[in-house]
Every structure is written in C-alpha cells, then in structure tokens.
C-alpha cells in the first residue's frame, strides 16, 4: 500500500482540514498510510479519524503577509508567504524537504501548498493538487491575475512574477535541484483535482483541467431537523466577526422564516435573544447531507460551503470577508443563484439582500444547475478521486492490490 502525505500550507479555518480528512479517510480505508503536514494543527480536534495518521507542522513564513497589499494574483500571495526572499524560501523549501524525504511519501496531495509542490518536485515525488479554483492558478506564463473587478497593473504583476521566479531559482540550487524556466512549472502535477464547478472557478474557466465538483464535507456534524411550521428554511453559517451580524439576526427574527444557525462562539446573550421554536441555534457544526436537501437559502461568508450548497440546488446570501470568498460571491451572482453584501454594506441593505436571495427564480436556477452535475455528488467525487490517485500511483510503480478487489468506502 502507498504512503500519501497531505500538505496544507496557506489559507485558514476548517475547510482544508475537513476536506483533506474526508479524502484521507477514503484512502486509509484502502489501506494507504496517511500523513498530515498542516499549517494549523488545532483543527485536528475536529477530525478524530486522523488519530492514526502521522502529523507534522507545515513550514510557514514567520513574516507572512507583512507589508502585503491587496493581492491581485497568485504571485502576490506567494510574495507575502516567503517568496520575497531567496534565503527565507530556502528555509521553507528545506523544511518541506526534511518532512518529505524523512516520511517518504509515494504521493503528495497539495491543498493550497505551492512550496510543498516545489519541494516534492525537487525530490521527484508524484504529486497532485486538491482544492477549489483559488488554490492553484492556471499554468500560463505569466500567471493570470484573479482580480476581475478592478483594473490590474499587469506589468507590475509580471515584475512580481519575475522576482518570485528569481527567488525560487535562488533557493533550488541549495538542494541540487534544477531551476525553473517558468513559474508555472512549479504547479505541474500528476493531476489537479479542482474541486468546484467550472462556473465557479475563481479564475474563470481554464484550459487542460478537469473539474471535480465541490469538496465540502456533508457527512459530518450534528443531525438537526428543520423547525416545523410555515416559512422558508434558512441555514446561517457565519462568524461572530461579521459586522452586519446584529442586523442580520434582527431581520431574520422579524421574518416569517425558519432558521437554523451555526455561529461559532456566539455569546449567550445573542443566542438567547435569537433562539425560539422556529429558530434553532446550534453550538456544533450541522450535518449537511439531508439537511441541505430541504434548505431554501444558505447565508454564509462564501467559503466552499456556498459552492457545496449549490450542489443541492440551494441559493446563497453571501457576506464575503476576503477576496477568495468575494470572488465566489461574484460568481454566484453571475449565475443568478446568489446575492452578496460586502464589508462596507449598511444595515438597511440586509432585508433587501435577504429578499433578493429568496427570490423563487434563484431557487429555480440553482435547482436546474445542480441537475447538470450529478457526477459531482460528494461520495461519487471521492470515489473518482481515489481511483485516479491509485491509477497515478500504479503508473509510478507503486504496488497496490488490483482495483476490482477493493470496495469503495466513504
């Protein structure tokens, strides 16, 4: 059986850990050995199945984001995460190489992990990427910007790319690795599991890539039934730092709708004020599998859950807090399955946003959209990804039992 290392280098929250753990548990059920090399380790507490995996801290730039402006392309993010200085990048690549050459994976699964890809490349290791469209750019030269709502200084971006490439090539010789001719080579992999819909790719559509559907975990969390009675069923999953949280809760409380809310860390005062028979406040993540089938609207920040909800034909009201979420929000708006309110929105816009998102036409469009992508159903997606990973492993000479003898586990 093979040794498979999951790398998570950039980004935050729980989505990366949950998604990696989902795929890892499927691979572990096939007898593969798993290592998690993660940026944040606290989140391991939400994936008890990882108890038997080997766990490592992913190398992380100590000056992350310092002096960084609003990024308009992938190279800007790299620049703020250690690629601005060849010495620092040498330290980070060396850190990844110690983990990889020590643990000796047969494959690296990279979730938003450019430096893990670079280190794996320098060691000649098979590697795949796994994540939504934001986490790996289209491999063109120069790499395209992801910002589409404001003019982009392409010359400035090209200069940043040149500098990032120079620092990569400044770091690689230390390890006896060949320099890159183009930065896009850093992202070369045996497969890109782009886990979104083509319509929701942050970069727009891209050449030579397949789409594998959203990867949000639907099989985890507490089972909650929708409150009885009339009114639409609205699921709220936001954080307490949402500036419009109070207006949102007030508008929902004044509405005739049924609400289930998961707002991690919500204070007792707000919880007591909001919760009624028709409005449930969950203190744990909600299991989405059956729950979303009956949901009329998702209110979220526009993370992968909003893409996942579309799989169930659920429209969205989005409060994006950073650019990746904002880009998703804009794509949902283009599809006419979502409405969004930015950080500068005023409280009076909340009722309008809610009513706009609940427009029956949006639900209709979302349902029609979902019907087009039945192969993206979570279990089916995981099954197909595991088949593809094992195909690559076999192609690279790993000894696995024949596919026919393997049951597919969840």
């Amino acid at each position, binding site marked *: 059986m093979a040794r498979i290392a999951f790398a998570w280098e950039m980004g935050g929250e729980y989505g990366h850990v949950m998604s990696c753990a989902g795929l890892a548990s499927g691979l572990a059920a096939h007898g593969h050995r798993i*290592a998690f090399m993660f940026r*944040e*380790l*606290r*989140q*391991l*507490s939400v994936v008890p199945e990882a*108890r038997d995996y*080997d*766990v*490592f*801290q*992913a*190398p*992380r*730039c*100590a*000056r992350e984001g310092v002096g960084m402006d609003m990024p308009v392309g992938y190279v800007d993010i790299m620049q703020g995460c250690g690629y601005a*200085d*060849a*010495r*620092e*990048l*040498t*330290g*980070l690549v*060396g*850190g990844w190489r*110690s*983990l990889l050459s*020590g*643990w000796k994976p047969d494959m690296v699964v990279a979730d938003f992990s450019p430096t893990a890809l670079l280190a794996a490349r320098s060691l000649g290791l098979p590697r795949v990427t796994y994540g939504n469209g934001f986490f790996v750019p289209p491999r063109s030269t120069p790499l395209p910007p992801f910002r589409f709502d404001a003019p982009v200084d392409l010359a400035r971006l090209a200069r940043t790319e040149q500098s990032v490439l120079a620092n990569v090539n400044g*770091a690689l010789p230390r390890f006896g690795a060949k320099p890159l001719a183009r930065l896009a080579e850093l992202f070369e992999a045996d497969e890109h599991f782009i886990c979104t819909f083509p319509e929701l790719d942050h970069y727009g559509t891209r050449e030579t890539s397949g789409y594998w559907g959203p990867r949000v975990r639907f099989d985890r969390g507490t089972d909650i039934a929708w409150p009885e009675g009339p009114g639409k069923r609205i699921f709220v999953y936001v954080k307490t730092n949402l500036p419009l949280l109070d207006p949102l809760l007030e508008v929902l409380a004044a509405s005739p709708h049924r609400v289930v809310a998961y707002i991690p860390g919500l204070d007792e005062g707000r919880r007591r004020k909001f919760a009624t028979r028709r409005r449930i406040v969950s203190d744990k993540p909600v299991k989405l599998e059956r729950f979303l089938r009956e949901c009329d609207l998702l209110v979220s920040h526009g993370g992968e859950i909003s893409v996942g909800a579309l799989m169930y034909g659920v429209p969205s009201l989005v409060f994006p807090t950073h650019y990746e979420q904002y880009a998703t929000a804009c794509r949902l708006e283009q599809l006419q399955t979502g409405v969004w309110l930015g950080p500068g929105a005023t409280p009076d816009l909340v009722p309008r946003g809610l009513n706009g998102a609940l427009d029956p036409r949006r639900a209709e469009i979302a349902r029609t959209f979902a019907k087009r992508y039945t192969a993206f159903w979570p279990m089916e997606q995981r099954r197909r990804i595991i088949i593809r990973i094992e195909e690559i492993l076999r192609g690279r000479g790993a000894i696995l039992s024949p596919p026919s003898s393997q049951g597919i586990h969840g």
Partner: protein
Amino acid sequence: MARVLFAWELGGDLGHARRIFEVANGLRALGHDTAFAFQDLLATGTLATPVAWYQAPLLAAPKDAQPGAPLSHSVVLLNRGFGDALSVAGATRAWFGIFHLWKPDILVVDYAPGALIAARAAGLRHAAIGSGFSTPPPQDPMPTLRSWMPAEPAALQRADAALLAGVRGGVERAGATRGVPLQASDVFRVEANLLCTWPEIDPFGPRDGADYIGPQDDPSNGKPMAWRGSSRPRLFAYLKARDPRFASLLESIARLPGESIVVALGLPPAQAAARSTSTMQLVAEPAALEPLLAEADLCLCHSGPGTVAHALAAGVPLALLPQQFEQYLVARKVVDAGAGVMLEPDVPSPDFAGWLAAAAVNGTLRQAASTSPLRGRRKRSAAERLAAMIAA
C-alpha cells in the same frame, strides 16, 4: 555519536538561532549530528552545512491574550496559546512527528516550551540553553515577573491553573501516558539548565539548579572595526534600525562630542554608508565587539543580555533602551547594580543627546562598570557541557 535536535519556538529576531548555531557547530566539531526545529526558518536558509531542519510546531494565538507586562511565565505561555488543550495537542503530536522522523538522542531547547512538553511525554532527554528569561525557576506558583509591583498571589495561581489545564489536556489528547505535568512548575522543569548569561544580569538570578556558562557568542567575531581618532568620549551603539526611536537616536548620536561607532541591524547598507559622518561610523552588520568595547566609554544598546554581558566584561557602562520585556528585566538588573542607565520604552520624546552625553562622562557609572563582577569573566562552552551530558 549522538543526534542532537535543537528547538526554538518563542522570542523574536535571530538571537536564539545564532546561539543555537554556535552551540551546534561546537557539537558537530565534537562529532555529533545536529538538526534544527525553528519557529522562523529564515535563519536556516543561510546554512551551508548539509543538515536537516524543520518548522517548529505552532500554536493558535489566543483571542484573549493579556496585554502589557506579563504577570508570570505562565501568562507568557498562555498568551502564546498554551492554555488551549486543542492547540497543545496538535503541536505535541507534531513534535512527536519530528522526533519520530529524525530520531534525536537528546533535545536542546532555546525557548521552546512546546518541544519540552513533548520531550517529557516522549521520554526524550533534554537540556535548555538560553539567556535566563526563557527558563524561569520552576516554582509553585510560578514567580512574578513584575517584582516592582505588589504581589498578586491569587492571579499567579489562576494563571498557573489555566496553563496546567491547557498543557495537561493537550498532552493527554496527544495520547501521552508519561511526562504529564502535575503542577504548573512541571511545565518549566528541564533536566539540565545551561544559562548563557551570568547571575548578575539573569532576570531570575542568582539562582540554584542552573549552570551559568555565559553568553556563547564570541565577541571577537564580526566585522573588524576600529576607533579613528583620540577624541573622547567614545560611544559604541548596538541598535535595531526598526526601533521607532532609531531616527532621532541617530541624529542625537551624530551631534555628540567625541566619536561613535553605531551598528544598526536591519539598516540598508547603502544608507549606513550615506549617513556616516567624520565622527560617526555607521554600519549595518554585526561588528567585532571586543576590540571596540575595550576602548569605549559608553555602550548604548537595547539591553540584550549578550551585549550587556560583553560590555560589563570590558568594564564599559551602559545606556539601555529595552525594546521588550526580557530586555527590560536585564536593564533593571544593570541599573540596580549602578553600571548603567535606562530610558523606559514609554518615555515621550526623550532628549537622547543630553542623556547620552551625561552618561558618557558619568564617573559613578564608570566606576561601577569598571568594578563589575563580570569584568574579564569568560564563558564556558555549552557544546562541551552538552557533550559531557550525552556521554554520561
């Protein structure tokens, strides 16, 4: 020969990494193998030797960190996430991961409490090197760091209890059955405590149960520089260019009578050259301290224990501008001994020129510095101490 893993988790800048490299070089010269687990991998990026290095496991920063001077070392660790069992559990598992991959025979920490917690749970031998602040005396309750304020025993105990709960919970979640702390002091206990400082400037000194071996860096290393003329007083300054006071400090130094040499770490080298004057040599890289201090009248610095120790060993009085808490505690020691003056960080728009000019000709300061017990004191080698420990 033994495999020695060095760990550094807390404390900024590169002082910890430099000290570790110094000791590691010594151990390699004695035939041992070394690897590094650092919170900041920038320093490892310049290593020419073929050694392994790892990212030290990181804890999630707590939302309720207590601002200001920490009450005790338990608060220092709580502010870094050690009160959160889930965070400690994740980090402990990741330390186990490094131990499993590299298979060290001994762990040497330079301010790495998470590594120590994991080493005890893994039954790995360990020793600490550091400047004193990072290895507080293990007591219950953990001693106050604000000796100048009224005692707050209840608050000390509350902090200890919160730390113990986080660390215990974390270690247990990580599956450890041994090395689980029973009281807060157990979190800080080390098998061997090699203090790379002297009792007179150790924030917790003098104390028992520790081995004072002195700063490990060699003050004759660095860019060779020399005093140009014979005019006095001579000011040697060792500063960080990113200090908000740096610009006005530099202006004041340039106006001082006599001669000055200023090392400004982090200053672009071109700027250093451009701003030098006939009486002020300004450089951006570390200079060899020993020959300069031997003929200096005043040493201006941020009160890093290494620079302070070298200045007092040379009998040079100090003008101190601490930037952070450890430096502040060292500065208080020096001021209490009469060998230096300190400007507290929150003094608004101080008169640097007046302060420096007065300190440079202050006979009482000079007298105290020239008779300092640190005068001429020589370090003992941490590498040799560790090698002896390994062989024992």
